[in-house]
Each structure stands twice: as C-alpha cells, then as structure tokens.
C-alpha cells in the first residue's frame, strides 16, 4: 500500500508546540504536588474529596496532550499507512468519558450524603505549637491548588489556537475554571465552620456539575472529531469562507473547469480530497501537481491532500 507522506509542522509552529509541551510538563509537576497536598488535608470533607478528584482528573488532558505529541510525529509506516495522528483523538475521547463517569459518581455520592444527613466531622490539628481548626488548613490547600493551574491555564490558552490544538485548549479551559471549583470548596468548608453541615455536600455537588459539564463537552468534541465532522475553526465558527476562497482559486487554474473539496480534521491537521473537473478530455500531471501545491501552501494545517480528476461535480 502506498504509505502517506510524513508531515511536519512548520518551524514556528514547532516552537510553539515545544513551548506547549514544556508548559504541560510543568502543569503535571504542579498537579502532582497539589494532589498530594489535598490528599493529606482532605479528611472527611465531601467538597475537598470532590476537588481532589477533579485535580487528579486534570492530569488526564496534559498527559493526553504529551502522548499525542509523541505519536503525531511518528512517520506513517506499513502497519499504519495513514500515520498516527488519530491516536490523540482516541485518547481525548477516553479521557472525556472518564471525566463524565467520575463527575456522575461524585454527584451521586454527595447527593446520598445529603439525603442521609451526614454531618462531616472536621477536628483540629496541631501546627507549630498551636491548635487550629483543620478547616483552615483545607482552605489553604484549596487556594494553593488554584493558583498554579490558573496561571498555566492562561498561558496554554494563548498558545492553543496558534497551533490548533483542541486538547491543549480544553486543558487550558479546565485549568482556568479551577477558580470556580476552589470557591465552591472554600464556601463548603466555611459553611461547615458556621455549623451548616449540608454546605459541604452542596459544594461537592456543584463541583461535580462542573466535571460533568467538562465531560459532556469533551465527549461531543472528540466524538465529532472521530466522525470526521465538517471542520470548524478553534472558535467553533465554520470555515466556509476559507473553503470558498480555496475553491475559487482552484477554478482559476489552467485547465480547470470546476473544483470542489472535502476536508476532515485529524487533530491539529487537515486532510482531504480535491475534486477537479478538467476543461478538456485529459488533465495533465502538472495541473494536478499545481492544484496540490495551491492547497498545501494555503495553510500550514494541510497534511495530506489527494487530487482526483472527475467528469463532473454532481
């Protein structure tokens, strides 16, 4: 079988990609420290448990991104003639499903605790010779858990559209939204401090909704991606203008009567077919190559284009 040509990002995009990978490694490092800190302080608070689970889950997108970066660059071979670019989409889908199921579990668990009227016990802890309420320690852990992700999330959010990386952007969005989880968790614990035993479970429920929402949005995204949905740009706007422009430029080529395209997204790249109706009976190899070059040079995102002459576009 004819194996696909290997595809590589242009140098400036490669640079951004490298920076994104570095940010993700840093993210993983911070997240591990946050997960440990929160595990040590969470004791019997539902909200802390939910926040801790959410932080542990936030490890999935960075890991997914780094794995996909590793696979993306592998050249297509005999076994995988189309290359490995789809590996990322699969990982993305798996991660989204995991997110969804766990969000559901937390919602279920905290609702149960609300119905059975469980009062969370949060005692005191001795620190530096003073007895303080463990709740203060938990609040500190929560705030610590919010700051690095928010800073890193902002940085990643800036890079993502430039290299058209959906996983990166989703990860950045989840990080930026960490402030919401943190506020909910802090309010939950302050609520317990005020004697409102239900505050904790309610906060946990709220956090679980965030996780569920993340899960659903990402499942939709990754499923559509795998189903080769008509590509949209990073903001979700249609690419009709871009495609129309390509169509008209193709029609202007020598020996081309009419042309159309069919594109699909493969992670950050675009692949597809170009249908060309020649003016005469035959189409020259040179003209096909011209059409090919036109498309490839129009955007860095095109990885694999097949030009095929057809009798008509109907």
């Amino acid at each position, binding site marked *: 079988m004819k194996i696909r040509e290997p595809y590589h990002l242009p140098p400036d995009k490669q640079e951004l990609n490298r920076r994104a990978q570095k940010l993700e490694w840093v993210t993983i490092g911070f997240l591990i420290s946050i997960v440990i800190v929160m595990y040590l302080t969470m004791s019997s608070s539902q909200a802390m448990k939910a926040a801790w689970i959410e932080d542990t889950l936030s490890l999935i997108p960075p890991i997914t991104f780094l794995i996909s970066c590793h696979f993306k660059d592998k050249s297509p071979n005999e076994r995988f003639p189309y290359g490995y670019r789809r590996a990322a989409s699969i990982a993305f889908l798996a991660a989204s499903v995991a997110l969804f199921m766990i969000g559901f579990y937390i919602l279920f668990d905290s609702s149960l605790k609300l119905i059975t009227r469980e009062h969370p*016990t949060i*005692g005191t802890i001795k620190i530096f010779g003073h007895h303080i309420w463990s*709740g203060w320690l938990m609040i500190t852990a929560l705030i610590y858990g919010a700051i690095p992700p928010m800073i890193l999330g902002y940085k990643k959010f800036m890079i993502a559209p430039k290299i058209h990386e959906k996983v990166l952007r989703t990860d950045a969005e989840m990080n930026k939204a960490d402030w919401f989880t943190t506020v909910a968790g802090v309010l939950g614990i302050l609520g317990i401090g005020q*004697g409102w035993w239900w505050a904790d479970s309610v906060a946990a429920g709220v956090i679980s909704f965030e996780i569920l929402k993340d899960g659903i949005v990402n499942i939709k995204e990754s499923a559509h991606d795998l189903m080769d949905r008509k590509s949209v740009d990073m903001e979700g706007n249609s690419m009709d203008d871009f495609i129309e422009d390509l169509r008209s430029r193709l029609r202007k080529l020598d020996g081309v009567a009419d042309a159309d395209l069919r594109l699909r997204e493969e992670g950050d790249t675009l692949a597809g077919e170009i249908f060309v109706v020649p003016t005469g009976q035959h189409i020259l190899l040179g003209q096909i190559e011209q059409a090919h070059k036109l498309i490839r040079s129009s955007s860095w995102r095109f990885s694999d284009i097949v030009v095929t002459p057809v009798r008509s576009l109907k």
Partner: protein
Amino acid sequence: MQVLMLIILDIVLFGCGMPRDPNHTLERVQGGVIRVGVAENPPWVKRMNGLPEGIEIDLVQEFAETLNAKIQWMWGPEFEHMESLKHFELDLFVGGLTQSHPSRKRVGFTSPYFIERVAIGAPQAMIPVRSLKGLPVVTAEKGKIIAELKKKGAEPMRLERLARLDSVTAAPVWELEKLGFEVTETVLQKRKHIIAAPPGENAWIGRLERFLYDHCAQIEVRLKQEQ
C-alpha cells in the same frame, strides 16, 4: 480600598467563633450536663460498684470541670452508644476506643490522644530474642494479637492476667515496663486511642481535642500506677 477593608473585616468576623456545632453541643454543656456513654475496658474504663472509673473517666471528669458541667454516665453495649451518638442522644462515648473502630466514618472521633504500642517483651535473662518461631509467648490480649503471634510462628498462651515473669510476653509497652520486662523492637499493634463524639459537632470535638492534648503527658504515668 475601603471596600477591600470591609471585605477583610467581614471575613475576620465571619471566621471568629469558627467552627460552630450544627447541634450546639458545646454551648449546651457549658454550665449544663454532659451525657457520657461508657463501656467497660480496663484500664481505660472500669466498673466499680456500678460507677465508672479509669483513665478515660478521669480525663472526662477533668474536662467537664473546665466547662463547669455535670456528667450523666450511662452504661450500655458499644453498638447502642454508637447509635446514640449518631442520633445526638449522647455527647461522648468512652470505652478505650481506638481509631480503627468500624464506626469511625459515621460518628465523630477525636484525633488520637495516646498511641499504645503492643510489643514483645522478655525477662533480662532471655534477651536477645532472636526469633519467635515455635516460641511460647504469654499474653493477656485477644483476637488480633493472638493472630499476629501465630502469623509470626509463635505459640501464644493466653492468660487472664499477666503474672509470670519468666517467659516471653506480648503486652502493651507500658505494662511490659511496669512488670520489669525488656521491651524488644517487635511491635505487634499500634492502638491509637480516641474518644467518640456525635458526628459534625466540630466545636465540641475541637475543645475536647485541645484538652486531651494538654493532658496526654499524664496518661503514661497513670497507666504505670494501674493495679
């Protein structure tokens, strides 16, 4: 700027007096009555002529004095006391309980105020104890300790009270020291002693935890004085 100051002030005022009890236990017992469930478990809780005595009883009595409160003692089986705590019908339950108790998730436990190590001890003449395999070990303990000894290949011999001073013995470290044994490094169990309270009464539990921490030094001394 002024808004920020107001917000900080609000937070500080809000924070003062935290945590609070959902069921106002601490408020209620001050100058009032503390309902304490008791279950026999010497030397922590003993029954003498129907009245409770013991290390934990003394601690609770001193604690009550700091609150200007009287105590209502209630004897009964453990599971009943745990149920009462869950339904806020009791304020405390003492019975030599440890942190590994199965009810730990449904009621409130203080953090451990004393860690009791159960270890192997031996008379001076038999030190060092090289291996427990096939060795007869005397103990007054039940259940887990017997199983642990068997796991290590020893032959446990159960007595009601420790008396023999000429054989390898498994007992809490304070008891081994009292009987004049040399304590080896083999620890069979670590018991983290706690006192049980109603779930979520965090001001009440916090107050007790502070008290226990301040008085935990006396416990070792008291244990050695036990008959």
